[in-house]
């Protein structure tokens, strides 16, 4: 399991100490400590509004800390410039620009951290874009407009965009929400491969589903504070322990037997509650 603090500082992808974050003047995150070690797969869980997205956005530098200290790969945020090592999949938004954009173009922007100004895409960039599209099963859609995709397809394009940059640290905000089971399984395979290659992954999920076997550690947020940090929890446990107050669930799948059960039988489909 996680061995916080024992590694060389420069090796630690994420280290947040006593992080406070206020949004529009409202304190949202309070005294959050979070260390993610190299190669770890952390599931960030908790009820809606508990601060999961805010925490992930803080970790990638989108929300300023009002107190505390954040280091990425051993450098404080202001001194960290190596953004090609970080990949981010935002929580899904249907917002698109006012002009058409193709799937290829959106995924290609995931290569920007590797490109020099005023240079065309190199063949390595193209290969990475194609590979990322294949991984999420969108290879045949490269020249479609993103406005014509279903929600789940759009989500997979955003995942491909992050994968195209070949990040060492990947943060995904609810990548499986609204995605059907076969595609959740495809995502689990892709993240599994990334994990084997040594990537560090922080994943926000309301339900883990087919991703459960990958998880090394669970962090549960509650009301802007960290309520649990330790061994992986089954979806049912998160709810049962009251971390998830006010949320009604009918699924019982994937608890103790969890990680080895055949996905089809054990996995509750998050879609049922949408």
């Amino acid at each position, binding site marked *: 399991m996680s061995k916080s603090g024992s590694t060389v500082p420069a090796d630690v992808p994420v280290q947040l100490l006593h992080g406070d974050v206020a949004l529009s003047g409202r304190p949202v995150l309070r005294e959050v400590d979070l260390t993610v070690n190299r190669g770890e797969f952390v599931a960030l869980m908790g009820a809606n509004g508990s601060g999961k997205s805010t925490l992930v956005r803080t970790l990638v530098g989108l929300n300023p800390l009002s107190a505390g200290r954040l280091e990425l790969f051993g450098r404080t945020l202001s001194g960290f410039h190596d*953004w090609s090592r970080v990949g981010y999949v935002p929580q899904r938004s249907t917002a698109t620009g006012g002009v058409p954009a193709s799937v290829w173009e959106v995924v290609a922007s995931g290569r920007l951290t590797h490109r020099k100004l005023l240079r065309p895409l190199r063949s390595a960039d193209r290969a990475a874009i194609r590979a990322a599209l294949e991984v999420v099963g969108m290879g045949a859609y490269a020249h479609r407009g993103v406005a014509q995709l*279903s929600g789940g397809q759009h989500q997979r394009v955003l995942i491909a965009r992050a994968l195209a940059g070949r990040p060492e640290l990947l943060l995904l905000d609810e990548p499986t929400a609204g995605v059907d089971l076969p595609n959740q399984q495809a995502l689990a395979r892709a993240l599994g491969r990334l994990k084997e290659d040594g990537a560090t992954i922080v994943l926000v999920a309301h339900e883990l589903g087919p991703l459960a076997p990958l998880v090394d550690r669970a962090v549960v947020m509650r009301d802007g504070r960290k309520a649990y940090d330790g061994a992986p929890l089954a979806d049912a446990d998160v709810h049962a322990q009251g971390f998830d107050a006010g949320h009604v669930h009918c699924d019982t799948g994937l608890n103790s037997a969890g990680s080895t059960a055949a996905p089809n039988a054990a996995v509750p489909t998050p879609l049922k509650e949408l």
Partner: protein
Amino acid sequence: MTLLELFSVPFMQRALIAAFLVGIAAPAVGTYIVQRRLALMGDGIGHVAVTGVAIGLWTQTSPTWTAVVVAVAGAVVIEVVRERGHAEGDVALAMLFYGGLAGGVFVTGLAGTGASRLQEFLFGSILTISVDDLLVTMALSVVLIVLCVGLSPQLFAVSQDPDYAKVAGLPVRFYSILVAVLAALSVVIAMRTVGLLLVSALMVVPVAIVQQLTRSFRMTLLGAMGAGLVASVGGLALAAALSRTGANVQPGPSIVLVALAGFFLVWPIGAWLRRRRALVTPFPETSPEEKPVDEAHPHLHGEKCGHVAVEHGDHVDYIHDGHRHAAHVGAEGEHYDEH
């Protein structure tokens, strides 16, 4: 004077070169403006630039350079107010626009140069493009086109998803202000041809024309530049041709009307494409219930059966009399499920 003779006159040639370059450059910047959903930004900058021109006329310096300074300053203020996202931002911007226009007309009055001199800048003018103006226009147009095309990966990413661009380490703020400054420069180079009050149309309408047909950003950018070129040169030629008959048509209005005519010509094709795309937009990826279709099926759905095929997760549904039919091979043979 025939139309051909007219085009051999030096002032007309200068006007043509300017219209050619401005027709390409303004929609290039306009594509990013529209992508950021700021279609009215060009209007705002145009209004503010009126004050810049008036200051140039009053101080008897080059109206082009005073317009550059004031328009760039106005564009940066607009971008900063927008970025802050204040609730009062909207009203603040509106006041900036009114102030720009009123200030310009007021200062022109002080200068005693008369409204007709200002009008050349408000709606464009074929006759008044000097060699110096043309050189400035050429230089700035080339800069604009090179930046808009060369930086398109960065500017696209920043306009499409600013949060993601920030995590990719791009200086989002710098690029946002750069787009605003480019917009200001395209307003200034376009003011002699389309004029300050109509310049925004040359930035926005060509984009609106081509995005009815395109699916990628790149094609939209290049297509808008082509459409802008046709509208700009076509509109100028129209104004010149009409002026032969004794009419006094400024190039600005005729360029904008040509562009709008292009939009309405393309509109039926766009509407047809949109309808077709909407029909085949995939259904949400839920696990469907398996309910066999009751009625007997006279044919197998396929590529040529004429029923619309819509992707649905890992398979295809066919729209048949308002139902979604999905082929299903069960124990009792192949049938269609209602999805």
